Each structure stands twice: as structure tokens, then as C-alpha cells.
């Protein structure tokens, strides 16, 4: 291939460089708009030429994402984006590959692929938009819909238990797991930067509002006024504390079980027994315990749950190729065809 002649890294890119001329077709007020804008805002910071980005998606509202990114993009088939992205990344590890999926696409039809891209630790960024509903097909319940929620396909209420995306990713052996909120630009951008910097599969759950079919499902954590009570910011090295002045509480995790600790404003949370967040904890059980935190008894943790180091799949695969070439020399067709028993006929 004639390699890229001039990288565009030198000229500083802006948000505009990542916008396409295609009309964005999400419903007015959809949480996807905010995510798109923040992704377009963060990408220029990475110092990577635009042509090295590839956005890969499946099917669903969020999966229209690649059409709005002025990068390379592949809008694939329902649930299978992780498999396409794996092929792209293994073929060209120098590319920055982003998977955009949703709770239906990623956790229902595509659960198997999501599991395995995480397990293999392919160095991709996975953005899972969780609106707890099927939007594009007009309002059926998804694997993350709450019990009892009434919807088009279960008018008397959901009777299957919801899946937590963070717990799913941790269970699959994720080396990087984070959660953020569509409208929280600062938090979202922060997590995107961390996900990009992580060498391995980076899983990000984005709590996203679907104003048409599941409006307000994340209201408590999206609303600035209630966010301090409803959310628990995860900051590495800081105690797990949330709540406004006068109502501060901490969380202690002991033997995998979380417990609330009421704190007076002047209390030292650590001295009071509040757990200090450690995203590099050697056991994923700690992050799993955090993943069980949910309303009504607990706030929703946001931020980085876990960031562990493990070699990525495409790197190990490349190493096998390098080793094979070093040990056996570059393969030749002539050598291959004549290997083993041959005989001549004159």
C-alpha cells in the first residue's frame, strides 16, 4: 500500500473536522446527540490523524453513529460489531478502533460477541449506549429494562431480570470498565480519554436517555440538582463518598458486600471506615461489588471501575507472527509446496 503521504497530525484538528455532511437523524432531545458532540470534541486531543480512526457499529439508534463521524466507519449487522472490529484491529493494529453499540445490540443479539471481544482484550474502545429500551424498533424492552416496566412487547410489565452492563463486562474479564452519563460532558470526556489511553479492550457504559420510548429512566443522575445524591463519582485513591453537605455518606465494601456509612461534614471518611477506590485492585471482585450498587438503596457509581494491565490480543498475535518469521524465516511458496514427502517423475 502506498502509505499515507502526510499525516494530518501536524495541523491541529478540531471538532469540526470530525463532523460529516450527513443530517443527524436521531429524535430531538435524544441523549445520543450529546455523546456524539463529546466524542467529536475529544478525538482531536489524541494527536491521531483522522484517517486512523474507524467507528464500527451494529444495528439500533446508537449504531447510526459512524455515519456522523468524518472518519472511516462501518455500520454492520445486528450485534456483530465487535467481530467486525476485531477483524479490523487484528489486520491493522495501528488503527484506533471504536465500537458503538446499545443495550439491545450489545447485550441481547450481540452478547456473545461482546463477551469475547472483552475476554480477548482486543485493543478497541466499546461505547455501549444504555437507554434500557429498543428505540429503532419502536419501544420493546431490552435486557437492561427494569422488572415490571410496561412496554410494547410486554404490556403487563417485564418479567425477566435485567443485566447490568458493567457486571457483564467484569464477568467477561474486562481490563477496563467505566460508566458515564450522556449529558455529563466533563465526566464523559474524561472517561473517553481514559478509554482511549487504555491498551486493551476498554468498555464504557453510557447511561443514555431515550425521550421517546423511555424518558427519564436515568433522570435522577442526569439532573444536576439530584446528581450529587444519585451518583457516586469513582476517583482512584479517593474514598467512596457522595451526597451534599450535611447529608454526606460513604460506602464500605467488605467481603464483597457494600454498606452505607453516614458521615458528619467534619468526619475523615477513611478513618470512618469508608473504602478508598482502587481501580487497579488485583481482584475484579472489588469492582464487581461496586457494580452491584444501584438505586434505591445506593447511588449509581460513575467513572472508572477497573483499569488492569494485560497484553492485548492483537499484540500477542503480532508477536506470534514475528516469532514465526524469526525462527523459520519468511515463508516461501516454493518451500511450502515442496515440504514433506515428494518424488520426481522423469
Amino acid at each position, binding site marked *: 500500500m502506498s502509505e499515507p503521504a502526510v499525516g494530518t497530525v501536524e495541523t491541529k484538528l478540531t471538532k469540526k473536522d470530525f463532523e460529516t455532511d450527513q443530517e443527524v437523524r436521531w429524535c430531538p432531545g435524544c441523549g445520543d446527540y450529546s455523546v456524539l458532540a463529546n466524542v467529536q470534541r475529544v478525538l482531536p486531543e489524541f494527536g491521531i490523524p483522522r484517517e486512523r480512526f474507524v467507528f464500527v457499529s451494529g444495528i439500533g439508534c446508537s449504531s447510526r453513529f459512524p455515519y456522523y463521524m468524518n472518519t472511516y466507519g462501518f455500520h454492520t449487522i445486528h450485534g456483530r460489531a465487535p467481530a467486525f472490529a476485531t477483524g479490523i484491529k487484528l489486520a491493522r493494529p495501528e488503527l484506533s478502533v471504536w465500537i458503538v453499540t446499545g443495550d439491545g445490540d450489545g447485550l441481547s443479539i450481540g452478547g456473545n*460477541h461482546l463477551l469475547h471481544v472483552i475476554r480477548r482484550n482486543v485493543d478497541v474502545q466499546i461505547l455501549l449506549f444504555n437507554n434500557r429500551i429498543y428505540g429503532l424498533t419502536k419501544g420493546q424492552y431490552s435486557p437492561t429494562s427494569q422488572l415490571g416496566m410496561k412496554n410494547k412487547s410486554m404490556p403487563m410489565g417485564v418479567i425477566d431480570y435485567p443485566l447490568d452492563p458493567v457486571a457483564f463486562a467484569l464477568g467477561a474479564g474486562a481490563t477496563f470498565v467505566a460508566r458515564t452519563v450522556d449529558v455529563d460532558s466533563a465526566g464523559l470526556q474524561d472517561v473517553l480519554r481514559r478509554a482511549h489511553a487504555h491498551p486493551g479492550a476498554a468498555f464504557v457504559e453510557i447511561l443514555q436517555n431515550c425521550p421517546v420510548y423511555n424518558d427519564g429512566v436515568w433522570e435522577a443522575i442526569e439532573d444536576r440538582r439530584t446528581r450529587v445524591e444519585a451518583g457516586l463519582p469513582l476517583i482512584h485513591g479517593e474514598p467512596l463518598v457522595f451526597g451534599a453537605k450535611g447529608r454526606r455518606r460513604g460506602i464500605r465494601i467488605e467481603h464483597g458486600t457494600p454498606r452505607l456509612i453516614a458521615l458528619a461534614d467534619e468526619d475523615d471518611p477513611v478513618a470512618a471506615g469508608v473504602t478508598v477506590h482502587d481501580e487497579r485492585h488485583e481482584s475484579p471482585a472489588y469492582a464487581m461489588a461496586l457494580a452491584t450498587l444501584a438505586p434505591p438503596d445506593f447511588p449509581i457509581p460513575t467513572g472508572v471501575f477497573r483499569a488492569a494491565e494485560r497484553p492485548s490480543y492483537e499484540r500477542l498475535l503480532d508477536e506470534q507472527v514475528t516469532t514465526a518469521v524469526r525462527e523459520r524465516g519468511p515463508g516461501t*511458496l516454493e518451500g511450502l509446496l515442496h515440504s514433506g514427502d515428494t518424488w520426481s517423475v522423469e
Partner: protein
Amino acid sequence: MNKAQASADRASKTQHPQNPNERKPHERLERVAIRFAGDSGDGMQLTGTKFTESTALAGNDLSTLPDFPAEIRAPAGTLAGVSGFQIHFSSTDVRTPADQPDVLVAMNPAALRANLADVRLGGMLVLNADAFTEKNLERAGYREDPLPDVRERYRVVEIPLTKLTIAAVADLGLSQREATRSKNFFALGLMYWLYGRPVESTLRWIASRFPDDVGEANRRVLMAGYHFGETSELFPVSFEVPPAKIEPGVYRNITGNTALAWGAVAASTQMGRPLFVGAYPITPASEILHELAKHRNFGIKTFQAEDEIAAAAAAIGAAFAGHLALTVTSGPGFLLKQEALNLAVVAELPLVLVDVQRAGPSTGLPTKTEQADLLMALYGRSSDSPMPVLAPATPGECFSIMLEAFRLAVKYMTPVVVLSDGYLANSAEPWRIPDTAALPRSVVSYHTEPAGFAPYHRAAETLARPWAIPGTPGLEHRIGGLEKQDGSGNVSYLPDNHQRMTDLRHQKVAGMARDIPPLELRGAASGRLLVVGWGGTHGAIATAVDETRADGGEVAHLHLRHLNPLPSDLGDVLGRFERVLVPELNTGQLVRVLRDRYLVDAQSLTKVQGQPFRIAELRSAIARLLED
């Protein structure tokens, strides 16, 4: 031993090793078919493979067919656990493993019972007498001893194979179980003597393959079998099958699966682009993945995916990123991959899918052969989704077809299906190794020019869209499953555009007929009867047609390698014959396509038993059509 080793080295390089047996008289034969049969744990596949290698070194033309049970280890001694390997070798042309073996080596009563009906009447049965116990007879389902009756119809040679094996290794301190494990080598050695095959390559292989004590046991047992033939009065003569007249060159044995794998490697070296292989384990295609996984030093990236769907999807992803992409599977996996293939059709990305067809719907008969995925390859996707389809005719042709499939995939920017089958996958034939310097070589180039770039801007002649890969500055674009606007590639819901894109996709695949050379027939260019086949039935049909012609029958044979698009001269060729017969290992698939396309009154001959056609079956069908 050293001396033997030295002469062995020479023997393996020279073409006509002498029949080493000089003590007993030997009789000259033109052709022989032998079937080795035993319990699946008896090592019959290995025995057959070694006999094949030795026979190739002896300069014969040959064809082989393994027949193994789907279960890895069915209960010992039962019919379900019988594993067989047939080899047909000759001093003249051989194209099939033969309808009826002349010799059956049966390691137990179940192997006898499962195979006896196939053996030529009056043929030779070599039996392990030690295994014919009451209990084993019962396990095989025999109510009474079959041997008295069998002895009247066949030449039965009963040898206490287990006892002789144990005796041969008596002083090696092996357990009884370990010792008897070598007994297949006794049978192998005996057959080597009987048909004057060289033993040296097998001795070398044993030395390199097994640890010292096991290797020594196998070596001794092999030689014990060989000397038993020489000394025992059970065999008054040995046989000689002189070398065949074969086109000069360097040869090797090759199975269809290996040839498919090597053809993919060759595509990569000749097209100058790395190969990516997405696969999920499935019988009988897994060996292709295994073979390619061995060759990382060619820069090949094999990827065992979580399922069939992901295997195809990852390959398509790699194609988007500029690799030569391959996915290999069998029918049930092909079915799962259709969704991804449909995307490749719309995204217009190059991909090669190999389907090693197996028998039956659903799990069916995983280890048996069939040709019943043709209609699925042609029509098995949602909506209008044209895809080129090729089928190799012989194990050796599996190599060249992969070169062609990749060349077409890239030239026309389309997924291409290659339909192999379980018979081609496992059967072996001597293959003249092509001169690699003479293989066409042309490095594939990607589109890199930003000026005037549009992802669906098509080349005038081929209608192919440009292959513009991520990483190329100025060509950033999005593709996907939503209908694309002609040219720009933007999402389009316009009615006229969908009509145009559907038509273009059809025209593009139809236009590939330009690349198909004129058809070649075996026999006259016109006349009473044309037999049209495709895929792995080639050897049987060609033999049946040749035999009929030798007897004066007016028949010709056409074997189709291109099933979509069909060759542009096919209609003319069909029209030059009074009658057309289409034999297929399905319930009539190609015949439907031909009737539909050419309104020809083609007759169908079908068989779905998990077995290849017998030459006799084809001959009688041909004879019937020639008579009335």
C-alpha cells in the same frame, strides 16, 4: 539398518523402486483397490495414509478415500465405531477410489460386517483371527460365525495378528495393551510385502515420530508383518503394480483440504497482500484452519472466532482493512454466515468463503459427503443478493481454485463462494507441484487518490468499487448495510436508486462470465448425450464416460467449475446434444438451475447416501439414456 536407510533415501527419490521380494514369484497387476478397516481406535487412517505415501513413492497413480465415524471413540467392536480407508492404485490413470475393493483388511468382525458387501466377489479378505471371538462376533451383531459362509465366496486369509504382534515385541517390556496397539503396523507391513511397496519412508517416519520404545515396537511389528508375508505359506505369490506413466515433474500427495489451504497461501504470496482467516471449528473443514494456523511465518493471521458468524464478520472486517480475507466452514456454518455475507455483498468487499459440504440438513452426517449446498450458495440470503460460486473438481484443483477465487474477489470487489465437499476434503491424489515462478503474480493495489474519490464510484468494465482502506488520508468514508447511493455511497432510501443498485450488483456478478475460459468437453463436441457434473463427482463421472466411450457409447462429459455466473457458452454447448444428464449428490440442484436458465430438458441422477457415486451407477444411468 544403516545400509537400508541409505538405500531408502535413494529409493524415495527414484521413481521405480524394485520389488524387494525376490523369493516368491510375483504376479503383475494393472490396478488394485485395498480397504483397511478396523475399530476407530485401531489406527486405520494412519495405516491407509502410510500405505498411500509408500504407493506414491512406488510411482503409481492413486486415489484414496477415508471413511470414518462421526464419534471420536464409539464403543469398541461395534459397527458404529468402524473406521475405513480405501486406496486405489494403478499403473494407468486413476480418478476414483474404486467402487469395489479387491482386498479388505479387517481388524475385527465389525469391520468385516460393515465392509463385506462392498468387496468384489472372489476378492481377498485379510482378517485378524484373534479378534474373531464369540464376544466380538456378538458386538458386531453376528448371530453365528460368518466365516464358513464367507470362505466360500472370498479368498480368506486368517492371521493371528494380535498374537504375532505381541510376540514381535515380547522382550521390550511393554504392557499387553501397549504391545497390541502396534498391530496395525503388522497389517501395513504385510500389505507392503504383498504389493511390493517400499517400507523405508515409513521406517523413517516411525523413527522421527515416536519415542524410543514405542518407535522400536512399531518398527519391529512393521517388519514382522513384512517378513510374515515372505515366509508364511498363506501367500504363495506377491503382486507387482508397475509404475504409471505420469507427466514428468515433482509430485506429492495432497488432499482437498490441504490444497485449499495452500491455494490461499499462494493467493497471498502472488497478490502480495497478507491473509486473514476467520474460522470456527467444524467437520470437515477444520483441517483448513489447522493447516493455515501453522504458517504464521507467511504473515498469516488465523483467528478462531467465538462462532461461525463472528468468523465471517472478522474476515469481512479484515477485508475492509485491506487483507485478503478467508472464512472456512461447512454447510451448517455457511448458513450462519449468510447474514454477514449479505453485508459483504452490499458493502462490496472482497472475501472468499469455503464451504466443505457435508451430508444432511442440520447436523446430518458430519463426516460424509454431499453436494447439497449449491442452492443455498446461489439463493440462500435475504433479498436479491448475487454472489459468484466456484467448485473444484479434484483435490489438486482445490489449489488453483483458491487463486482464482481471490483474484475474482479483489478484481470485482465481491464475496466469492468455493464449494468443496467432504469427499474432496479427505481424499488424496498425487499432485504435480506447480512451478511457482510461472504462477501469475500481480500485487493488489488499494485506492489512494483523494481527488474525485467516491466509495461507490465504479470501474467502467468490472463495475467494481474502489478498495479504499482505513489509514489512507483523504478517503475517510462510511460503508454499511443500509442501501447506498450509487457513487457517493451515502445512505439512500430513494426507490430509483435501490432499483439501480440492485441491477448493478447483478450486472457486476453476471459480468464475471468474461473471465471464464471457453468450455472444454471430454468426448465429442456434440452428439447423443452430454453428462454435466460439478464439484467432487468429477473422477467418477469422467471414468464412467471414458469407459462408456471405450465401449463405443456416444457420450461426452462437461464439468462445471463456475456455477455463478455460468459460462457464457454453456447454452450453446447444451443445445448441441440430444440429451443431458446431470448427476449430483443431492436431490437435484444444478439440474434445476440449468432447466431454469436454459429451458433444457435435462435428466437428473441423484444420490444422497453420504457416499460418492459408484462408477457402475453412473454407467448404467448413461447406458439407459443412450438406449432409449
